């Protein structure tokens, strides 16, 4: 829970407004063709070729247990740096980079439950909407395989 003003890269997911620390973001690229990874967790959408680097793409909607993205809508890649190399987060739409003063920062309300509560570090009350700050480390923490592994 940092108490300093910080810059957040923002994006939309199923109508919600999310942000992550801008210094974590390596780049934002449009939709890339993906190679599916069988046996992987359903959160892993596939692998993309980012200038010769193989990057795992994580479907944030799936990760946050939101509704699946409507057919035909192509996600954007928010490529974030992690200890383990770059990982791409698939989002609906990219927003601006916002500078946020810390006084409006709050813990997620008790009513927020489930995965979202686990992954959202806090909420900024903006004038017209709420900005949910995502904990990138936790978001990238995925058990290697999905339920179908045993099937």
């Amino acid at each position, binding site marked *: 829970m940092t108490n300093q003003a910080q810059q957040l890269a923002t994006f939309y997911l199923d109508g919600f407004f999310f942000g992550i620390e801008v210094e974590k973001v390596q780049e934002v690229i449009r939709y890339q063709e993906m190679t599916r990874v069988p046996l992987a967790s359903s959160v892993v959408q596939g692998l993309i070729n980012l200038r*010769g680097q193989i990057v795992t793409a994580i479907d944030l909607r799936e990760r946050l247990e939101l509704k699946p993205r409507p057919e035909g809508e192509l996600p954007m890649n928010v490529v974030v740096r992690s200890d383990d190399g770059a990982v791409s987060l698939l989002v609906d739409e990219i927003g601006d980079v916002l500078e946020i003063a810390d006084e409006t920062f709050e813990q997620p309300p008790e009513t927020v439950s489930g995965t979202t509560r686990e992954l959202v570090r806090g909420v900024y009350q903006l004038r017209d909407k709420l900005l949910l700050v995502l904990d990138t480390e936790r978001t990238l923490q995925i058990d290697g395989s999905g339920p179908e592994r045993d099937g």
Partner: protein
Amino acid sequence: MADATELDEVVREFLVESHEGLDQLDRDLVALEKDPTSKDRLASIFRTIHTIKGTCGFLSFGKLESVAHVGENLLSRLRDGRLTLNADITSALLAMVDAVRRMLADIEATGSDGDDDYAALVARLNDLQEALAPAAPDAEPRPSLVDEAVKLTASAAVEDLAPEPEPVPVSAPVAEHVPDVADASPLPTARAAEHPEAHSSSVADTTIRVDVHLLDKLMNLVGELVLARNQILQFTSTQDDTSFVATSQRLNLITTELQEGVMKTRMQPIGNIWAKFPRVVRDVALACGKQVRVEMDGRETELDKTIIEAIKDPLTHVVRNAVDHGIEAPEKRVAAGKPAEGRLFMRAFHEGGQVNIEISDDGGGIDPEKLKQKALQRGLVHPDQLARMGEREILNLIFLPGFSTAEKITNVSGRGVGMDVVKTNIEKIGGTVDIQSKVGHGTTLKVKIPLTLAIIPALVVTSGGERYAIPQVSLLELVRLEGDQARRAIESIHGAPVYRLRGNLLPLAYLSRELGHDATTSDGAAVNIVVLQADGRQFGLVVEGISDTEEIVVKPLGKQLKSITSFAGATIMGDGKVALILDVMGLAQRAHVLAEGHDRAIADDRQASDATNDAGQELRTLLLLGVGDSGRLAVPLDLVDRLEEIEHRAIEWSAGQEVVQYRGQILPLVRLCDMLGTPRPEDGEMPLQVVVATEQGQTIGIVVDRILDIVEDRLEVRRGTQRHGLLGSAVIQNKVTDLLDVRGIVCSVASDLSMDDLELQAAAAA
């Protein structure tokens, strides 16, 4: 032992290394004088001199070693803070660096460390460290040889050194052995330069050291370039512009050459790690009172650096083992009619994109009986398992964890760790280990490892619309079954699909099923079986399509995917898309095709059915056959020798009987449909399905219409029959099934043929 060229190589490396070290030393010493308390600098200087000392001791440059040794002693005192650096010490150390440099130049020019006398310098360095001795009465006595060196030349001791405030017991690494300074024995074998004047530039000038990470980065970039090149080439094929096509051709060639060049920078001859083996062998042999000669072949065989590093320790262990356990003591060898001196032969060569390394000794070999006993004693295997093992499997017991055959545990090897670690380490880099041994003649250990880990040849297959790469190393062969054949050729045992590959049952796994795709096994489509090997066992992987073999650049998967054992990594294909690399071992385990129990279970079934042959109530393994339109017949599997497919054109006639040539014999054929009076099926293109059975020395082939399945069920004859060829009926898998009287059929054919038998045998013999 070692010949001149090899030592040359070692000496050259030593020179390059030492020259660099000395340059560093000069800088460090001067810097140190400004900041005498810098522990890092001191440690760095100490390391450099220590390395030089160590290496030249090994190369028997006695003089150089002695100079470096006293220098090291002095430095160790500085490092431990028992002496403080002053101008005198710095000058002495710099003088030592100069002397070392002079000797290195001598070595490069003449192969020996020169005739100059460095006794004065040695004494000076000694005196400097001596200066603190009175102040440190608790100090251990210095090694006597150094003392002698001091006595050689008595020069004025430097008095003005500040005495140590707190005497500390000497913990400096005192020399184990310092050769006599006066003994300037030249290197016996190295004749590095017979014409020193021919060397215009120093060895150190023609090579540079490069950070491996930089090479890795270059390697990656070249990988990218290869991919970009592939994409351009694909695009080029759609273009007509001649100058563009020519340019991309050139790009193609240059990229290939660049790739080879960069690969080469990472390649090192295996001789680099072998070079230390003669010494290892000598030491081990000495320790256990043996005489061993080392011979090497293929020292120049090149391998990727990472692989060289990975096999260094396993190979060293194998070599030690061979000398310690393999080669016998001289008297024992002589008694066995072998020369007293044992021979350790190391061979390396390239074969099929892999490097083979063989280490053989002409020692006592491994006694399989002893191995068995040991394995049982330690409870590593079950007696039943052991009884079924072939010789090769028994020898491979040696790789089990916790296995040691040495009767007495020596300090060299034989603590029961080792061979399993060797195997694990080699397998970790995608290699295999095999052992062959003959009692009384010796043992050969064969290691196969990939050339490089970064770029590997792989077979590209498709499944569920995606491409997957299978490393070529695990690939044995490809089998394609077309149309009707595809449906019939794949049979099932206990629900597990199998394919008969040249008489052996090959367990099958469906890639699409294992990867959780919808199985799209449409009837009539061709079936592609990729025959793979994992852990010394074979299995078939059924894939939807096989594209091509390609050189792929292996890239690791992110941590989110690490736990999926079915994938070894990923790669980027020519079109820029990502393809997953299958981990053959992981996939096999997932599909349970290598499960120990799998074919063992069948063997167990057979044994069980043998044991209770006539009990009737016990579970038996039955071969189900189809005859006519709906007839179902069963044969106990233990009465069946083999199942064969025989082409129509292979059928010949002999004495009114259909026969085929089968394994050098003449096999009479009996058509089951004729015997049972069912209509004979049209002789199509399909080969005949033949059940081969032997009774009382007579082997016949029973031609059946279809082979349905192999099942396990209780065999209880419910209804007898008088019909020839049948024993009766039973209910098998809830269906009424007739039991074929194999014995009766064979015997009746045998009596029919008894007259012709002699002729047949004569024909077979001819």
